[in-house]
């Protein structure tokens, strides 16, 4: 079960003279929740952006291996292929729902590819000759399951922008899951959530892992990280300073030093430059 899903090797991302990520290597295993943590500006979001095709890394590689052995060099794929072929989904620190579309439509958009394949790319649908109605029913069925899982069934036809903040967060995760990913990358999913919403999020993430999707997580909320992660990677100034189980990481003196700001030279807030 615990084989290698994502292998990041010597990943480097330079912005001018700034090394936001510096020769970073780590492995995320299948069926686990892997957390990437570190102080502000450590380069966590940059790593995500390299994995999901937002940035072309300056050097190094990101290799994803499916359970059937298919391999994808993510640093070379365009964004929509990363979602469609490599099946990697992600969310952002800020909410990026399609606010003007309904909750249900947000979940259907993510299933666009299966639906388009069933329509013969739009042509057959016009003639009413396709499996489209069946495919659409399945897509709606799948969306309903996720709406149940995140407790938003009642609000399926409301515009996504009208939902409360915590619900929007959960909807984003559900939407990402609708592309049927093998790896879900979450950038600070617990940011701005109250303790009750945080608990709901934990339950949702554990459920996703139980369903067989691995998770890569950036998070500041240590309550969330320590409770649900199987494996933690700690970054500081673009380098990996610790790697292990929550217990190992918690006890690592390097981590404590980084978080308490001991021995800090050249404090450059990399993420501010990047964002």
């Amino acid at each position: 079960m615990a084989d290698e899903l994502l292998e990041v090797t010597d990943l480097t991302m330079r912005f001018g003279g700034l090394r936001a990520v510096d020769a970073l290597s780590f492995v995320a295993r299948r069926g686990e929740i892997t957390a990437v943590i570190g102080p502000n500006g450590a380069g966590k979001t940059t790593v995500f952006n390299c994995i999901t095709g937002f940035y072309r890394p300056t050097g190094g590689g990101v290799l994803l291996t499916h359970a059937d052995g298919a391999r994808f060099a993510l640093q070379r794929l365009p964004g929509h292929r990363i979602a469609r072929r490599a099946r990697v989904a992600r969310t952002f620190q800020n909410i990026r729902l399609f606010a003007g579309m309904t909750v249900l439509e947000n979940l259907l958009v993510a299933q666009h590819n299966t639906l388009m394949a069933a329509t013969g790319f739009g042509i057959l649908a016009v003639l009413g000759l396709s499996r489209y109605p069946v495919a659409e029913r399945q897509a709606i069925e799948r969306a309903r399951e996720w709406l149940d899982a995140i407790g938003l069934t009642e609000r399926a036809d409301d515009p996504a922008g009208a939902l409360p903040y915590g619900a929007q967060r959960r909807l984003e995760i559900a939407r990402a899951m609708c592309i049927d990913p093998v790896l879900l990358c979450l950038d600070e999913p617990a940011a701005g959530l109250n303790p009750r919403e945080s608990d709901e999020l934990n339950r949702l993430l554990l459920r996703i892992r139980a369903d067989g999707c691995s998770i890569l997580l950036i998070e500041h909320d240590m309550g969330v990280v320590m409770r649900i992660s199987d494996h933690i990677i700690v970054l500081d100034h673009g380098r990996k300073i610790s790697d292990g189980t929550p217990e190992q990481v918690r006890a690592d003196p390097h981590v404590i030093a980084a978080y308490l700001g001991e021995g800090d030279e050249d404090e450059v807030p990399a993420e501010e430059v990047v964002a």
Partner: protein
Amino acid sequence: MAYALQQLINGVTLGMIYGLIAVGYTMVYGIIGMINFAHGDIFMVGAFLSMISLLGLAAFGITSVPLALALTLIFAAAIASLYGWTVERLAYRPLRGSFRLAPLISAIGMSIVLQTFVQVSQGARVKPMEALLPGGVQLMDQGGFAVQLSWMQVAIVITTLVVLAVFTWLVTRTSLGRSMRACEQDLKMAGLLGIDTDRTISLTFVIGAALAAVAGLMFLLYYGVIDFYIGFVAGVKAFTAAVLGGIGSLPGAVIGGLLIGLIEVFWSAYFSVQYKDVAAFSILVIVLIFMPTGILGRADVEKV
């Protein structure tokens, strides 16, 4: 009263044509935030394609008017779509990610290319065509003024409504429409959800061009004369309609088109024909001062 009714009929017919073109402007603006200045010329190409098709069908002895119109509609829409696709592929896609004005300048260039191409290949003279659907019905007669509803106007309004209904269904009910709306709201996020954004943008141009070609056919039927320059004036009017309705909003484009058509016709009827464009554009300016986002446009509210 009778006079006003007649103007209302004329205005709605003209407004439908503007509305069809305006939809193409507003769709492209919504999805990639650029004004496709070549869109009016796609409309002109559509009108020429319609004329070629109608004359060709007549030469082959197809004299049934509904059949000829249906075939022409399909032919013109298909070929104009090809033009729309090619223009996007050649002139806009390579510039995506470049600075904002680059595709705009490229679009003006494409507009000139299309105009010149038609001028050279079809000749610069005005092309007349005999009326396909002569006659009409007299709705009322008041003091010697007869209100006429021509069959042509009926055909234009019905065709436009059918085309817009199909288009609305496409945008609101199908997977393609959903992904178009998703790209319109957040292009990058749509890509991360597995939507091929380049293809979706291409399809937007294709659909816009098909609608413009339908408008071209309607224009040809209504006025009976076309030349290589009609795309400019109609394009500017339709663009105005799109802005008036709220650029980015599809129903707004149709409403804007109807308004521009009505303003133009009523102004010509009651004040002066020479100043009809001044009237239309003055109203645009006034609306934009008091409603900067147009009638149905939404302000971009950034939530933090």
